[in-house]
């Protein structure tokens, strides 16, 4: 099946690029991490298309890969961050991090094995195109939609206040 092959390719790409965001063996420059995060987000938009969430795939590319990552790159260049010098990695921190990540993965794997999801579900038909999602947003989810718009306004005012020169 072509979609199955596409799933494996896109999932592998997402995970590889995600790993390169977190730990790149060749470069510790934040700009490289940001670029790999863009690639991660775009391959995840491909996964969204495979899940028939067309509107969300477009929003993912526009908002995340477009707006949010441009914001990240602006800030990186504004701060003029140099190549992160290699400080001594604290062994305790690394061990604690690996243990906690291992614990989380163990919990996920245990719960996936215990619940056996998606075994007796009917053939999926839900398609998230713009018309359907828009109708839901303006009927069932009208109040959250308006609240989110107020949240964006508050965030905008807060950001302007925070980035004023003399913070009082």
């Amino acid at each position, binding site marked *: *099946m072509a979609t*199955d092959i596409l*799933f494996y390719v896109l*999932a592998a790409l*997402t*995970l590889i690029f*995600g790993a390169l*965001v*977190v*730990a790149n063996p060749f470069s510790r420059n*934040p700009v490289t*991490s940001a670029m790999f*995060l863009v690639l*991660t*987000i775009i391959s995840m938009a491909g*996964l*969204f298309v495979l*899940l*028939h*969430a067309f*509107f*969300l795939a477009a*929003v*993912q590319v526009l*908002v995340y890969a477009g707006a*949010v990552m441009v*914001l*990240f790159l602006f*800030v990186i260049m504004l*701060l003029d961050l140099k190549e*992160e010098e290699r*400080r001594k990695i604290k062994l305790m*921190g690394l061990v*604690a*991090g*690996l243990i*906690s*990540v291992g614990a989380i*993965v163990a919990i*996920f794997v245990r719960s*996936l094995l215990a619940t*056996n*999801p*998606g075994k007796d*579900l009917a053939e*999926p038909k*839900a398609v*998230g195109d713009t018309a*359907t999602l828009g109708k*839901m*947003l303006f009927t*069932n989810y009208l109040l*959250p939609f308006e609240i*989110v718009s107020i949240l*964006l306004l*508050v*965030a*905008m005012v*807060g950001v302007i206040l*925070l980035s004023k020169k003399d913070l009082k």
Partner: protein
Amino acid sequence: MNVGLEHYLIVSALLFALGLLGVITRRNLIVIYMSLELMLNSANLALVSFSRFNDNLNGQVMVFFIITVAAAEVAVGLALIVALYRKRQSAHVEDLTSMKY
């Protein structure tokens, strides 16, 4: 083998673990922030796959709201980082210890 819900959930779990690893081990504030975005995105992937395999679009609306809130959160967080950098000339978490003791 047919790709089902559990395949997407495994990808989402691994991506979440990668993001958590980045948050815990990296020392640059901006890279930590990018790892947080990775974790948010893995939650989005899980929600979209649940929505698809349960024939229910509510999950996708939730993802839409998560993306909006994440955009607002990124703007505020990056403004905070810029304000912090103006005061301390550093975006390194080990230089920001004034609340430690």
